[in-house]
């Protein structure tokens, strides 16, 4: 039997919001009220969830294996930073511009790389990230080079909500943006377009044989995904008032991939569970010994690939399946 999450999606399913889907937001609210000292970490987690969601769209649903998604995240982050420094620090404007810029970059690069497959595509994604990284690193006048841009002046949201030093505004800001983007991704995934995207992932040959414009659909999905990643990057700039080269590294692309796989690929909520578990664990464990953290992540990845391809949510689903079978 297909798992709960996949039964709801599709022509035979139902797109109505299930009660369990409100759990993430309840938890998010709970953190705000009951664990205020964790708000800065919480905001970062929310940003990473958005980043993971964007990757889920093209990797989980689109089946496009990329190691270069940080390019769009970082591009959005830098665009937001440069905009704030040079023109206006208005956050909402920054989000819009970052989304547009990252989307355009996604469209331009996607048009090029989606003509290739497998290794060539993977490699091109790495090359693109490297190119954007080099530009950010060399164009010191605009980007601050390897020092990055500090104390980026961000104005209060809508003129009234100032970013306070406890991270309350930042948290709620990220939460609001995440809710909006989550709703967008959810809508897309449930739509015919989302189904067709899943079709291109499952069987590219068959999609062509039913007359689908595969390249165009993939490109649209890639562009949206890049725009969302750009929004996540901009959120980071706005909430930390800083942009540095770390937003454009291969490490970051790898990390968000790990988070997604950990949570469970091809499940929207995998993009929620993964970052939470990963970042909370890292907050506790990596401080002790960063090397053992890296080792652990490596071993975890190998373990997931060998034994638990569906990540945490996949494990939960199969556990649930076993329990259901046991009840008489």
């Amino acid at each position: 039997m297909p798992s709960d999450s996949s039964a709801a999606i599709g022509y035979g399913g139902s797109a109505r919001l299930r009660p369990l889907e409100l759990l993430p937001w309840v938890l998010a609210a709970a953190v705000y009220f009951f664990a205020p000292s964790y708000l800065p970490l919480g905001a970062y987690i929310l940003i990473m969830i958005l980043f993971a969601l964007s990757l889920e769209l093209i990797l989980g649903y689109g089946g496009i294996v990329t190691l270069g998604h940080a390019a769009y995240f970082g591009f959005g982050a830098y665009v937001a930073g440069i905009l704030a420094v040079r023109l206006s620090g208005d956050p909402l404007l920054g989000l819009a511009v970052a989304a547009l810029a990252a989307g355009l970059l996604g469209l331009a690069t996607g048009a090029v790389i989606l003509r290739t497959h497998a290794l060539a595509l993977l490699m091109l994604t790495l090359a693109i990230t490297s190119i954007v990284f080099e530009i950010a690193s060399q164009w010191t006048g605009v980007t601050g080079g390897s020092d990055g841009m500090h104390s980026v002046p961000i104005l209060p949201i809508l003129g009234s909500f100032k970013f306070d030093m406890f991270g309350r505004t930042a948290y709620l800001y990220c939460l609001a943006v995440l809710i909006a983007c989550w709703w967008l991704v959810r809508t897309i995934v449930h739509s015919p377009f989302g189904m067709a995207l899943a079709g291109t992932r499952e069987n590219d040959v068959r999609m062509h044989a039913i007359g689908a414009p595969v390249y165009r659909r993939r490109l649209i999905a890639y562009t949206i995904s890049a725009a969302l990643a750009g929004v996540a990057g901009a959120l980071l700039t706005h909430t930390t008032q800083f942009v540095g080269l770390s937003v454009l590294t291969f490490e970051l692309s790898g990390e968000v991939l790990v988070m997604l796989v950990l949570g469970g690929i091809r499940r929207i909520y995998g993009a929620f569970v993964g970052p939470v578990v990963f970042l909370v664990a890292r907050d506790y464990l990596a401080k002790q010994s960063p090397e053992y953290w890296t080792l652990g992540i490596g071993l975890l990845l190998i373990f997931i690939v060998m034994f638990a391809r569906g990540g945490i949510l996949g494990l939960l689903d199969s556990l649930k399946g076993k329990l259901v079978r046991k009840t008489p």
Partner: protein
Amino acid sequence: MEAFFSSLVSILFHGLAFGAILYVISVGLSVTMGLMGFVNLAHGVFAMAGGYLMITAMQQLGLPWLPALLLACAAVAAASMLLERLLYARLYGAGELEQVLFTIGLIFVAVAVARLGYGTGPLAAPLPDYMKGQTELLGRSFPTYRVVVIAAERTRWGAMVRAAVDNRAMAQSIGIDTGRLFTITFALGSGLAALGGALGADLLAMTPTYPFEHLVYFLIVVAIGGLGTLRGPFVGALLIGVGDTACKYWMPEFGAFFIYAATMALLLWRPQGLLGRAP
């Protein structure tokens, strides 16, 4: 004009040395990916292991350069056989994503182990005295080390690896144990990577993040040369070796940039690489 010609020769020389290292490392990757269809992003790990093990053998065990080198290669080849049988073999039929995830996991593990074993900074490769000198060649002096690298590359490797690839065609037509063939080929490729890593420790520094840093270059060499061939990575390595050295010399700000852009342009024009088989 004199200066230009002189710098051209220097670029060619250093570029060829770099290319030779890239070739030795990447030829194993090309064969593995072409033969087994396995996206092995962790190939750089074997190169790194070769370098680190050689250094360890020289420093801890006091071995002279050549035995240390051979020991390192043999050790890496043996370890890779184990990895292949236990882990890689399970994923041969798996999708690209699984292979990518697995090899990234392997990189993380290797990087962590390297950091734990050798610290985070770069490790200097102690060259034997006879390698440290300069050789007079064409009226310019070049580090002896690099001369040896270029010379060694042209001798046995082509023959060895060619044999392994030829074996594949024969093996498949007679139905010989392809599992063992894959293991041996994989070990060969990894051993070569170790050799390249050790020989090239001077050019590509031994740091724990080696597999990450140079991954793009290895992949580029293989992708533009064409998968599954022997001449492919040779051409790719030459182009990248000389091209990268030239770009970084003449355009220090945009050097790396140019290589990536050129790769993108080439793959768009010919997605199968220069010498690869058309899809």
